[in-house]
Every structure is written in C-alpha cells, then in structure tokens.
C-alpha cells in the first residue's frame, strides 16, 4: 500500500560550514510516477532553498543527477521513488556540497589529452566504419560522465593509498572510443597505456552499475588487447597474458608455477621462496609441469592455428 507521504533521509554536508555530514529527515507528498529528482525539486522549492543537487536534462543525457539512493548509485531523473529512501552523494568522490560531487573541469573530464597536444589532434576521424563497428563505437561514445562507474571502482579507491594511479573506468572507456575513431589512434592508445589499465581488477562493478549499459570493463579488456598486440602493455600484465597463452598452448591447463616464473623471472621469483616453502609445507604448492589434459593434442593444433592467425 503506498503512503501519501514519503519519508526521505538526505545526507547534507557543506564542507565550508559543517564538520561532518549529517542526516536530515524530510517528508514529501507523493505524486504519481514520482522519481527521486522530483523529490529533490520539491524539497528545494518548498523547504530547503539551498539543497545542493544537480539536474538538467531529465532524460539520462547530461549525467549530472547521479547519486546514491539507499546506497545504490542511480540517475535520479529516472529512478522511481520508494518508501523510506536514504539519499546520499556518490561514494568515493570529493563532495562539493550535499549531493553534488566533484565532476572535474570539462577538459579533464572530456578531453584530458587536450593539454598534451597529442600528435593526432586536429586530424580527421575514420569515416567508413563497418556496420558492427558503428553500433559499438556509438555505445562507447554515449558515456555521459555520470561518474557512477568511477564511484564503484575498487581500483580507483585504492589510488588514495598511494602508488601507481589507476585512471578509472570512465577515463578508459572514453579512450577506447577515441582509439576506435581516430584515423591515427596510436597517441590515444599510448595515453591509455599511461592510464594503467592493468590495475583494473576485472571486478565488473562498473559494467554492472553503468546506467547506460556501456560496459566499461569490457572496454578496458579491449584496450588491454590492443596494447598487448602492439607490445605496449606493461611488463607484468604482458608476461601474465603470454604465460597463460603459452600454458594453454602447451597443455591446455594453466601451469601456475610456470606463470610466476614467466612473470617474475627465475631470479625474481626467488623472492617467493619463503612463501613457496610455506605452500610446500601445506601441500599447496603447484607442481611444475602441471598435467596436460588427456587429449591435449587435439586442441593444441587448433589453438596454435588461432594463435598464428591473431
């Protein structure tokens, strides 16, 4: 049974005035077909003149209305209301005020490479695309910079603790789109390499949460392949992939032992000796030359052909 009045808890915070975020409860009359943006607009017009939230297009194009409702990131312009909502800003991003997070300056957000005058800037895009390519490219370009993918990315969250910086799914899906369309994509591909795509943990949170279903994780996979094919992927990931491929070509199962050797080298893998000894004691050490599959040879030829073709 729907109630006439919705109870809404909003996380309010003005870093210039408040020490910490505070939760404020409001009551809003329910309208038919109400979405969360309507609730915020109602509060703004009737009760809270300084409620900090963004809205513009109402149709999932501008990306400014993203925030969390009951912990889940959504576009409020198209999120139906429910009883007892808790509204808070996107996680993991600096809060400007209330429900507004830092969406960066336009250049950084949309064309971060512009400051570096990449060597293909100003040149034309490829005009004739295959039909399959068009749909895919358009999908990638549809990113509205809502920041939802970045807000759920665990690799991006780790950046705060130092070390190499992951650029995030949003940046990477944009770069994949650039690589697809630019007639000379190499500068953007190299720019992507510097964005540390290998720090993506392949957790698919971004793909799961993207409100436009653009699949950033898959775009990162695609960039990885491009870099790998050009031998421009970082050494560890390259070794990881190559080892996997070799293992499978050799014996159809992954040889974990060999994997570590391939990645770290015979000398480098020495640092794992204490760990290896421990694993050995616990009978968990992968055996060298982990068994080939009973009928490995049947698939080996095929796989080798595919490898040669690629």
């Amino acid at each position, binding site marked *: 049974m729907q109630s006439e009045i919705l109870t809404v808890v909003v996380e309010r915070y003005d870093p210039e005035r408040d020490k910490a975020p505070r939760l404020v409860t409001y009551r809003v009359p329910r309208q038919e077909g109400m979405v969360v943006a309507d609730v915020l607009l109602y509060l703004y017009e009737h009760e809270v003149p300084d409620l900090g939230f963004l809205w513009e297009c109402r149709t999932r194009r501008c990306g400014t209305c993203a925030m969390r409702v009951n912990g889940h990131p959504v576009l409020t312009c198209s999120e139906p209301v429910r009883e007892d909502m808790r509204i808070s800003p996107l996680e993991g991003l600096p809060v400007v005020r209330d429900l507004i997070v830092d969406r960066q300056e336009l250049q950084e957000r949309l064309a971060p490479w512009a400051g570096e005058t990449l060597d293909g800037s100003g040149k034309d895009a490829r005009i004739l695309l295959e039909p399959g390519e068009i749909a895919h490219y358009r999908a990638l370009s549809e990113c509205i910079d809502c920041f939802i993918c970045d807000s759920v990315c665990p690799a991006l969250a*780790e950046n705060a603790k130092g070390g190499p910086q992951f650029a995030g799914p949003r940046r990477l899906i944009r770069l994949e789109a650039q690589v697809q369309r630019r007639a000379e994509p190499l500068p953007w591909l190299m720019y992507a390499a510097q964005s540390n795509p290998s720090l993506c943990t392949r957790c698919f949170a971004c793909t*799961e949460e993207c409100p436009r279903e653009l699949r950033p994780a898959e775009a990162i996979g695609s960039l990885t392949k491009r870099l790998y094919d050009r031998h421009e992927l970082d050494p560890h990931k390259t070794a990881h992939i190559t080892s996997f491929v070799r293992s499978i070509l050799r014996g*159809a199962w992954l040889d974990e032992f060999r994997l570590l050797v391939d990645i770290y080298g015979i000398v480098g893998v020495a640092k794992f000796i204490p760990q290896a000894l421990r694993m050995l004691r616990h009978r968990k*050490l992968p055996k060298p030359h982990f068994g080939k599959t009973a009928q490995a040879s*049947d698939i080996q030829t*095929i796989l080798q052909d595919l490898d040669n073709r690629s």
Partner: protein
Amino acid sequence: MGNRYAYFQGCAARQSCPELNKSTLLVAKRLGWELVTLECGACTGARDLIEAQPEMAMVLNARTLALAEAQGLETVMTVCSTCTITLRQVNKMLKENTSALERSNQELSRIGLRYNATVEVRHFLWVLIADYGLDRLKEQVKRPLSDLSVAPYYGCHILRPSDVLGFDDPDNPRSLHNLITALGGSPADFSSQADCCGFHMMTIDENRAARHAGGLLVDAQQQGADVMVTACPLCHISMDSWQPKSERVMKRKIGMPVIHVAQLVGLALGFSPRELGLEQHIIRPVEIIANYSR
C-alpha cells in the same frame, strides 16, 4: 536435471587449492550427486585469454562445453568464480550469436566435436541451492555450525555482470547467507562482502592487491566473524595463501581463517577438518579444527 553433472575442476582447485577439489568430491558423493569429471577439459583462460585472444578463448571453452554435451550432461558445474564467469560468458555468446557458434563449430569439427549450445554452466553453490535445495540439505546436517559466525564473501565473478551470472542480486546477494543459515551458522554481514578481492591485480601490483584483500578480511573481522567462506579458489589464494602478505603490508595481525563453500558444507555434514583439507590452509582455522575434529 537429475543429479548428474559435468564437473569442471579448473586449474586452481587442483594446484594451489587442492583442498577445494578434495572437499567438493566428498560432499558431492555424500549428497548423491554423480560428478563426471571433465578430464579433457581445458583452462578457461580466465580473463587474460578472453581479453587478449578472444577467438581462442571462445573455441577453447566451446570445446569444454561440447565435451560435456557429448556425454549427455546438461550442466557443467564449476567450483571457481572466474571459471564460472568465463564459461558462462562464452556460452552466452555461443547461444546468442550464430556467427560465434558457427566459427566455433568449424574449428571443433576438426576434432570431431560439435556444440549445440544446450549446456548450462553453474557454480557448485547454485547447484546446491537450486537443484539440491537448502531444505533437503538441512536434513543432511549432522553437525550444525551453531557457534560459528561466518562471513559470507561473494567477491565479483559469481555476481557481476548480472546479465552473465544472474543467480544472485549483486546489490543484495543472499545465496551464501542462506546457505550458512541452513547449515546452522550465523551469517556475519559485512559491507564489503560483494567487493573484489583484488586477485587479478596480484601479479601487477602485489602491495596494492594485498592491501585490498586485507581490508576485506578486517571488515569481516570487525563484524565478529570467526571465519570467512568464499566461493572462489582465487579469492581463497588472495585471502588465505597471501594473508601473511596482507598482514605485512597493513602492519597488522589479521588471522582470519578462510574456507571454501564445500568445506563449510562438509563440516556440517560431519566430515572432519582433516578430510576436508582444512589443515592445509595457510591461516590455520584453529578453532574449527579444534571443535570439529572428534
């Protein structure tokens, strides 16, 4: 349906997590499942192959599925989340994209195989819940896990993306929770229970991965968990085998035992910790071993 499944062991369950294979076989046998091990299966290629060599990954996994299908088996049962997502991803493509299926079958015909896209890929946990049923499982419980507070750790690849996995709601997964309850234990909800363990970053930046995994363990610990259960041997490696590393990087003692789903079930069914390979773990589940060995 029945209870006859193609058993895809994967790579980790036989190398760095042999206790997983061991406990799976014990539990399946006890519950009356017939597991037909796909000896001549092949590694799924994890995420590396499907990203860097998509065509190879497709054919390789089509073969595994075809092998199961050829033996009249409807379900390929996995015990690793990454195997699950990769096999399901390829299977979905083969079911939805005729060109992919044709290309695969063209290669498979060279070795006398053909895939008709009739197989389903399901994780052991799903088979347990959906086929066997938790009510039925409750009846088999000999030793309810009554004083055990178990942190249900889902990780990523068994949940996301939901159009590939689709068994549990990624925002509010319940399968492990319900299993724990059915076995008599208390699920210790913790906020990062569906977060990534960082395994696939392990060889890229160890410290980062170790910090990440450590954070999850500490979170579970702070919710009062005695032990963490995981559906994936890769998560297990990350959080058990490499827990000492996490402790070093975070400069704090954690000491949270991590066990596999099959081991959790096995304990409740009455198997001893030794039989289930719990003594092989790097972080020794001391209390479980003490309390559940008789």
